[in-house]
Each structure stands twice: as structure tokens, then as C-alpha cells.
């Protein structure tokens, strides 16, 4: 171990102050634990080095879940948003997604303020270079400048900084994002402690001076008139502000030709990049190669903030050399005379193989050491924040001697995210997607509070007042649902005129109002005129009532699927099972099971390389053990 020159004792050390680190540190300190958070640069707290927005398809769900548990991300974007939209409203309620453009500088500054003013929390600039581990138990960390911070728990949230290098064509710099210093020491310490590392890469597009863009050649996209807050605690009336616009444009054959002609100069195709990139967030080079039949790709031009001219060219991340970038961006309608302020680049970094973690995000082999965010092989601010709050809560529970908080796949996208990370073999940066959530009709962004707030309250991150508000909301939803199911309307002339006007078929006999809501052409708000005793309810309650009634059959069927899922989750596998001794298990399955040590039959069934027949063997094994 490195020599230290001074020591400090705290409860929890958080390494890294990005989106994961911020949530983790806030959760720990809010739960009363003395916490210190390290960052390479205090100026880069909650930095958004890539896209200037929070949320979007499935990621918006994560933000709402973080908020339901008592996290900060939703509140922070509500404070600093400059445009907000609910996406996919033409589709079912399960895939409605909230997305807000952030003023990046504001977002970062606002989060920094929250951290700096948080009781029990110390923000410290510095590089953590070594873990202090004794007998597989974490004892603290060493800093590069000689401090030893002894702690009961450590949470690693190093993002993309570990041994980071940025590539723009042949030009390589050994820095983290935005030219920030990379963290070059910690990887060695992790490896020395037996932690298996991966090398991943991701990328970001160019930022262009808005004065050089001809927006008349693009399609303007304004924010929604009625803005829905991310946070369940934000009063929607406080959100109104002038919103900025985003713009839609497209690449074309000329763009693609330039890219193709210069592919040999792309670090990925030239083999310079070793890291694995995300399939779901491909660079423009990848898109042109993989979807060669596509004549154009959609681009979003998004403002980076109110006090900058930088515009983010979403959909066109690249690691091509600067001269190629200059040509290629200028082929896009509206960008003919564009001036690039920051080049697009790819970034490579060290992260861990997340199957080394438990669902609590604690390392299986090192007690008290937790990990969250891009360090765990995910990508995205929201994915990072979601893991951050769970790691923070569970590091706290660990310090307090309580059971960890585990959210399962049927309870939240957070559960899906973490279960996927710790169970499936991640070969690329993991991005959340709605298709990954098999029970997504139940996991809507609109009911995240109803799903998770109680858990947040139980761990101690949700205030009594917020929890009571939730109970009140639940009561209103139940009462109103019940009322609609028991209030009948008859076939009188007012009702039949109304139905006729709505293009709905007439009634043959009296029906409960709930039955009318189920009709495709009607909904809760629409039948207001024939619902005489309707109470005055907040819009979020009305929305829940409408969804519960309208999609009741689907919700019930999905709940049946969840019940089947839960049965297997409840069949627990202890971690001392010697799988190699179980007769009938195939060798590959036994090895995988020994490596993963799944907590349940359910988790075992999701491990690749474990077949249904192997699961049957395990079930017989469990059955035989019970007798």
C-alpha cells in the first residue's frame, strides 16, 4: 500500500461526482451517514459531457423512479430544463416518455449547490488512486495526494475517467471527457484486488455555433404547452417558462459518401480503438456501414444551454478526423456553413464486468465495496443516476446493518437495469430500452411514485409529507375507480345524444361509467358531460383512474405474468451451493452458476448458458433437499 500522510474517518466514500456519484452521495448523507465525495474537478460535478437532455424513451422512466425513491435528478432537471416534451403520446401509456432539454451549465451548477449544501456531505477535489481492502472487506481509499480516508463503505462511480483516452481520427489525447484529467491509478488497484475489468468506448457528436446554422432548412420542434414535471414533488405550476426549440434535419447520400470514403481513417475501423461501443447508440460511421440501405439518418439539433451558442448535433457522433468532420457536417441541410466549436470524439475507458456485483450493487467478493454508473458498464446519465441511488441506499443499509433494497424486474426499470447488468453478460455499454422491461405496462412513468415511493419512505429518503401525499393520491384513485364501476348511466336521451356525438354506439341497457371508459373512442375526461357527480380531482389522479379502467384486462394479464415470474424469484438459491457436485447439470451450466451464484431460480434462468433443463435439475435438487 502507498504511504499516507494523513487520515480521516468517515462512514462512506463516494469516488466520482457524476450522475451516479451525486445520487449515491446524497442518499448516504441524507440517511445520516458521514460521507465524502471525490471528484477530479469540482467544476465537473453532474457534468453532462454528451447529450444536453434528461429522459427520453425508457430513460425518462428511470428518472421518475429515481425521484420516487427520493433521488435528486428529477428535481434538478425540473429546475434547469429549457424545453420539455412527452414523447410517444400516440402509443400506449407504457411507452409515454418524458424528455427535457437541460441547460447543461445550470444543471451542473444546481446539482453542485445541492451537494455543497447537503448536511453530512463533504465535496472534495482529488484523485482516488487505491482501495484499502483487508480480508475481502473494504476499509477505505487512498488519494493521490497522500490522504487515507477510512470508511465503512466505498462506492465507485468513476464513469468514463479510468485510463480514459479521447480519439478524433489519428489525434489521441489521454484525457477524460471535455479534456478533463483522466484517472490513471485506480484500475491497477482494482485489478490487484481481483476485479475483472473491461474496456468500453462511447462517443459524442460535434457542437456547432448556432450563429452558423440556417434553421430555416430544418424542422422546428417546440416544447409541450403543458409541461409535466419529472419530480413527483415538483408543483407543475412552478414550471412555466419560455422554452427553447430543437431542430430536425437529416444526413444524405453526400454525407454518407464522405464517411465511406474516409472509413479507413476512423479509429474504430482502423483498429485503433480497442473498447466495445454501444450498438444502441452508434456513431454515424456505424450507422452508415450497418444500415447501408438507408438514404438518410435523422438528426436533432439541440441547444446546450441559454448562455452558450453551442448546439449539439444528436445522431451524428463520430471519431473521424477533424478535416473529415468539417466536410461531413457541412453536407447536412442547414449546416452548410457551420463552424464546429467542439469536435466530435470517441472516448475509451476502463469499467468492470458487472456480473461481479450483487443486486445490491455490492461486490460479491469484497464486503462494503459498491459500484454504480458507467463504471458498471452502462451508458447514459439516467442509468448512472438510477444505479447511484441504489448503491447509495445499499451502502447506507450496509453501514446501518439493515437489509439491502432490491427492486425486482416487475417493480421498476431500475430493477430491470440492475438485474440485466449483474446477470447477463454485458459485452457493450448497456443502455436502457423499453423493450428490456418485460412488464412495462405495469412499469409506466406515470405510476413510478405508486410503485416505489413506499420503498423510498421505508429506507428513509422520502419525507413524511411526501409519503402522506402518496397515500392520499392512492386513496383518491381507488375511490374514484370504485365510483366509476358502481355508477350506472341509463339509456336516456342525454346519454344517447352524447354517445352519438362522440361517434360511439348507443346503449341497450344501463352500464357502469367504467364500461364507457373502456370504449376505444372514449376516456375518463371525455365522458365528463354525462358523469354528474364527478369529484374535482388532480390530473395525475384522473390519469391513473383512466389507465386503470381502460387497460384493466391488459394490466390483469400482465400481473399474471408477474405472478409467475415472482414464483421463481422466490425460490432462493443459497450462495454456498456447490453446483459442480449436482448430478445432471451440464458442465457449462455448473460453471456459470458457480461464477454467478444466482440468488434465485429466477435469476439462474436468465443466465445465458443455463438451459431450461438445467433449471429443472436445480428444481429437483431443491425439491430433493427439502424432503
Amino acid at each position, binding site marked *: 500500500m502507498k504511504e499516507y500522510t494523513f487520515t480521516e474517518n468517515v462512514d462512506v466514500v463516494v469516488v466520482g461526482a457524476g450522475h451516479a456519484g451525486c445520487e449515491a452521495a446524497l442518499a448516504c448523507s441524507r440517511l445520516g451517514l458521514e460521507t465524502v465525495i471525490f471528484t477530479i474537478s469540482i467544476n465537473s460535478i453532474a457534468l453532462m459531457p454528451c447529450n444536453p437532455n434528461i429522459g427520453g*424513451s*425508457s430513460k425518462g422512466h428511470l428518472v421518475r423512479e429515481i425521484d420516487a425513491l427520493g433521488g435528486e435528478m428529477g428535481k434538478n432537471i425540473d429546475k434547469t430544463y429549457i424545453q420539455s416534451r412527452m414523447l*410517444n403520446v*400516440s*402509443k*400506449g401509456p*407504457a*411507452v409515454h416518455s418524458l424528455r427535457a432539454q437541460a441547460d447543461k451549465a445550470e444543471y451542473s451548477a444546481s446539482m453542485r449547490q445541492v451537494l455543497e449544501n447537503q448536511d453530512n456531505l463533504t465535496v472534495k477535489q482529488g484523485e482516488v488512486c487505491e482501495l484499502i481492502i483487508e480480508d475481502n472487506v473494504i476499509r477505505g481509499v487512498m488519494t493521490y495526494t497522500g490522504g487515507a480516508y477510512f470508511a465503512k463503505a466505498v462506492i465507485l462511480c468513476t464513469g468514463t475517467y479510468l485510463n480514459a483516452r479521447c480519439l478524433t481520427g489519428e489525434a489521441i489525447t489521454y484525457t477524460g471527457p471535455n479534456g478533463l484529467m483522466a484517472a490513471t491509478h485506480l484500475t491497477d488497484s482494482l485489478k490487484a484486488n481481483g476485479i475483472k475489468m473491461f474496456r468500453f468506448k462511447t462517443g459524442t457528436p460535434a457542437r456547432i455555433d448556432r450563429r452558423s446554422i440556417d434553421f430555416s432548412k430544418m424542422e422546428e420542434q417546440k416544447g409541450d404547452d403543458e409541461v409535466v414535471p419529472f419530480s413527483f414533488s415538483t408543483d407543475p405550476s412552478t414550471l412555466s417558462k419560455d422554452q427553447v426549440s430543437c431542430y430536425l434535419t437529416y444526413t444524405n447520400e453526400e454525407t454518407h459518401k464522405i464517411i465511406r470514403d474516409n472509413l479507413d481513417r476512423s479509429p474504430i475501423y482502423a483498429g485503433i480503438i480497442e473498447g466495445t461501443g454501444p450498438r*444502441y447508440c452508434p456513431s454515424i460511421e456505424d450507422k452508415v456501414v450497418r*444500415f447501408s440501405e*438507408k438514404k438518410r*439518418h*435523422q438528426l436533432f439539433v439541440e441547444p446546450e444551454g441559454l448562455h452558450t451558442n453551442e448546439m449539439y448535433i444528436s445522431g451524428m457522433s463520430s471519431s473521424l478526423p477533424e478535416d473529415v468532420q468539417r466536410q461531413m457536417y457541412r453536407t447536412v441541410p442547414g449546416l452548410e456553413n457551420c463552424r464546429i466549436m467542439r469536435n466530435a470524439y470517441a472516448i475509451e475507458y476502463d469499467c468492470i464486468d458487472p456480473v461481479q456485483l450483487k443486486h445490491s450493487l455490492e461486490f460479491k467478493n469484497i464486503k462494503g465495496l459498491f459500484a454504480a454508473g458507467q463504471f458498471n458498464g452502462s451508458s447514459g446519465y439516467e442509468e448512472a443516476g438510477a444505479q447511484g441511488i441504489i448503491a447509495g441506499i445499499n451502502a447506507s443499509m450496509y453501514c446501518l446493518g439493515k437489509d439491502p433494497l432490491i427492486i425486482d424486474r416487475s417493480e421498476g426499470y431500475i430493477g430491470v437495469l440492475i438485474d440485466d447488468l449483474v446477470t447477463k453478460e454485458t459485452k457493450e455499454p448497456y443502455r436502457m*430500452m*423499453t*423493450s428490456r422491461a*418485460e412488464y*412495462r*405496462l405495469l412499469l409506466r412513468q406515470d405510476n413510478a411514485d405508486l410503485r416505489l415511493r413506499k420503498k423510498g419512505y421505508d429506507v428513509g429518503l422520502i419525507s413524511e409529507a411526501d409519503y402522506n401525499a402518496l397515500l392520499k393520491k392512492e386513496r383518491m384513485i381507488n375511490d374514484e375507480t370504485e365510483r366509476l364501476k358502481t355508477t350506472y348511466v341509463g339509456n336516456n336521451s342525454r346519454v344517447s345524444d352524447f354517445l352519438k356525438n362522440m361517434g360511439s354506439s348507443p346503449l341497450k341497457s344501463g352500464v357502469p361509467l367504467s364500461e364507457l371508459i373502456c370504449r*376505444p373512442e372514449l376516456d375518463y375526461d371525455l365522458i365528463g358531460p354525462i358523469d354528474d357527480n364527478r369529484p374535482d380531482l388532480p390530473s395525475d389522479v384522473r390519469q391513473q383512474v383512466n389507465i386503470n379502467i381502460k*387497460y384493466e*384486462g*391488459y394490466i390483469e*394479464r*400482465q400481473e399474471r*405474468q408477474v*405472478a*409467475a*415470474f415472482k*414464483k*421463481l424469484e422466490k*425460490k432462493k438459491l443459497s450462495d454456498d451451493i456447490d453446483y459442480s457436485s*449436482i*448430478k*445432471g*447439470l*451440464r458442465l457449462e451450466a455448473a460453471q456459470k452458476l458457480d461464477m454467478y451464484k444466482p440468488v434465485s*431460480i429466477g435469476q439462474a*434462468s436468465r443466465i445465458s448458458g443455463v*438451459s*431450461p*433443463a*438445467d*433449471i*429443472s*435439475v436445480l*428444481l*429437483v*435438487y*431443491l*425439491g*430433493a433437499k427439502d*424432503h
Partner: protein
Amino acid sequence: MKTDTIAAIATGMTPSGIGIIRISGEDAFSIASSVFHKKNKEPLSDYEDHRAYFGYVHDNGTVIDEVILLIFKGPNSFTGEDTAEIQCHGGILMMRKILDLCIRNGARTAGPGEFTKRAFLNGKMDLSEAEAVMDVISSQNDLALKNSVKQLGGSLYKTITDVRNKILFELAYIESALDDPENYDLEGYPEKLSVKLLDILRILEKLADSFDDGRILSEGVRTVILGKPNVGKSSLLNILAGSDRAIVTEIPGTTRDTIEEMINVGGVLLHVIDTAGIRQSDDVVEQIGVRKALDIAKEADLVVLVIDSSSVLSPEDEEILRFIKVNDKKCLILLNKSDLPTVTGVDEIACLTGSRVITISAKDETGIDELKSFITGEYSKGFLKYNDEIFISNARHKEALSSAIESLLCVAKSITEKMPEDFYSIDLTSAYDHLGRIIGVSVDDDVINEIFDKFCMGK
């Protein structure tokens, strides 16, 4: 623990000298006594443990077969429950008939492996036996991939897998469109899916309809034996089946019905359908029999025509030969009774048909090797194919199929009601899982059923 009483044929669906029907559960003895009486026609009054009773199985007094009834009182039985075993004369029809009788008297058909399951649940298996069970299951790791013919019916496996793949494709498409709307368009998709659903539903409904429609056997080379009465068809069957027992168990009252047997000829499983003798007749009933025999032959993979070489070619024989030619059937012609002076010779037949002609004597058992090598030879050359018609013979399969169909109908309803596409995936996923249960690739929530449904310990 109260359980219902289950019954099943314990000796497998193959021709054998003795067939065993096992009944297990609380009402096993009372059900046994309602279908059994002793030789002196007295019903069973007491059930002595581990005792064999000689007597008859009867259907409301009509004797069906001479049997031995064995009594095992729980917990000293294989399953740990009261168990009765009826040992009857082998033959699928007989066993089936007695089983049906037990069912009518209150038992329920046992699912595959259900006896073993009960043994397991009643603590009758120790860990090593459970491990043997695991071995059987794990061997299915390969079996499911390579050759599930024996367990499930290779074509059933294939059909279910095909349908599942179709569903999976649609699921993946919808999911892609949700996550990547730029590259996947759902415009016009509901209409396309409707059409595909109809196709899938048709396949599944046909499968579901095949459940227990009275046909016991599904696999093997569907072989129809044609020929005049007394030409030696039964003797031929006896030789092929390797025993001289009377395998021809005619169904009373319907002498012109067919008799079906499974016969293993040199490793090739023949599903033999013995028709009543075809005879030209003015008798209306007889004519129906003839027509039916030819109808069945139309569906056959192999037609074996037995001709009496000791007499002249009859008009019936000529009709069959014409039929074979017209329908272009794979055919084997056997000239039987070569032990008698030859009247109709090989050359005479050969000029009427392109089929192989073999001279045999069922009485002296000559020519049999040539017959066998013809069948194995044709099979190995791929000229003879297993019947690929699929039957669902398992109640759990039927249930899973029905659930899958129900789920797909829900998808169709969602389309009709113009629900957003993401709703389809709930029911598509359910259908996919239900079907997976049939071929054992979905992990069932019902643990014990899942395990024991997958294998049969042979008991």
C-alpha cells in the same frame, strides 16, 4: 393431503404380451372393484395388501378381458398411495379400453411422469433416485435439440418451434419499432400482423383439435395392409411383430373397422393399419368397408398388398392394383402361400405393376427376411417417410395450446380495437411462453409439474 385418483397404461403403447393399467390415489381400490369381478363373478370386498386377484374386467357386466388385479396399499406402493394394477392381455386397444373404463369410473388420466411425481412428493424417492431423475432430464438437453422423436414427436417439436419463431419475430419487430422508430415503421403493421395471426391460429387450432380424437398413435410409417379375407394378413402381422399371439383384437360390432398396431421392423417403426378384407360385394355394408379401406390407404405412406399365390388373381386384387397405380402409392406386393402350388406368379404380377413383388410363406415364415430388408432399405434410402401428421396426446400440451390460442385471440382483439402496438406484446409473449411449455423451453412457474412433465421414469 387429498389427491385425485389417476390412471394410465404403465407398459407403454407397444404391443406386448401383458399390458398393465395402473390406478393410484384415494379411490384406486373402489375404482378397481367397480371394473373388476372375481372368477366367481363376486366383486372385491376386501383389498388385501400385496395380493393378486384373478378375475375379469367388465363393463357393466360385459366381460372385456381376463386379468390379474394387484393391490398395493399406501404407503407401501411405488407412489406411496393406494395403488391397483390391472394386468391384462397386451394390445393397445385392449389397454386403452380398460383405461377408458377406469376413467369412466372416476379416475383421471395421469400426466406424463405423474406417478413418479407422486412418488417424489410422498417421499418415496431418495436423493440418489432424484439424481437419476436429473440425469434423465439433463439428457434432454441434447435430446431436445437432436432428436425429440421418441419423447414428443419430432414434428410436434418442429411445428411448435416454427410457430414460436414466428411469434418471436413479431415481438422483436414491435420492440424494435418502439426503441428505434427511425429504422422500424409500424405503419400498416397491424393489418399485416392480423393476416399472420390467422395463419398461426389455424396451425394451432388444428393441433388442438387433434387432441384425443380417438387415435392413439401418431408416429411411424403409416402402413396399410390390403388384401382379400384369409389371404394371410394376420399371420403376416404376427410374424412381423415377433409373436404368435392374437394381435387382431377386433372392435365388437364393427368388424370392418381397422386395427392399428405399432411394429418395429429392423429399427423402422411401422404404424400398421390392418383393414378388413377388401372384397367386391353387392352388400352395401361390405361396400362401405371396401371404400373405407381404400380411403385409409390413400393416406398411407406404404401400402402392403397381400395376394394369394395359390389362386388366380381376383377382381378385388386387380382393383387394388389399379388403385395403387392411380394414387401413385409406395407399394409392396406380397405373394403369400408359397408353400402351396403357385397359380399366380411373380412375373404375372410384375407386369401389372411397378411395385416390388416378394414371395413369402406366412406359414413357413419364408421370404420374411427379404421383406424386412426391403422395408429397412427403402427407409434408409429415404423412400419411406415417417408420417408427419401431428397429434397432441397430452392433456398439459392441450391446455398450453389452448392458452396460447387464447392469448393470440387477445392480440387479434387488440388489433380490432385499435390498441397501440405495444399492447400486442403482452399477449404475444404469453402465447410464446405457453408454447414453450409444450417443448420444455419455458421455465414453468409450477415447479414440480414442470419437472415431472418432462420425463417418464417408465413406471
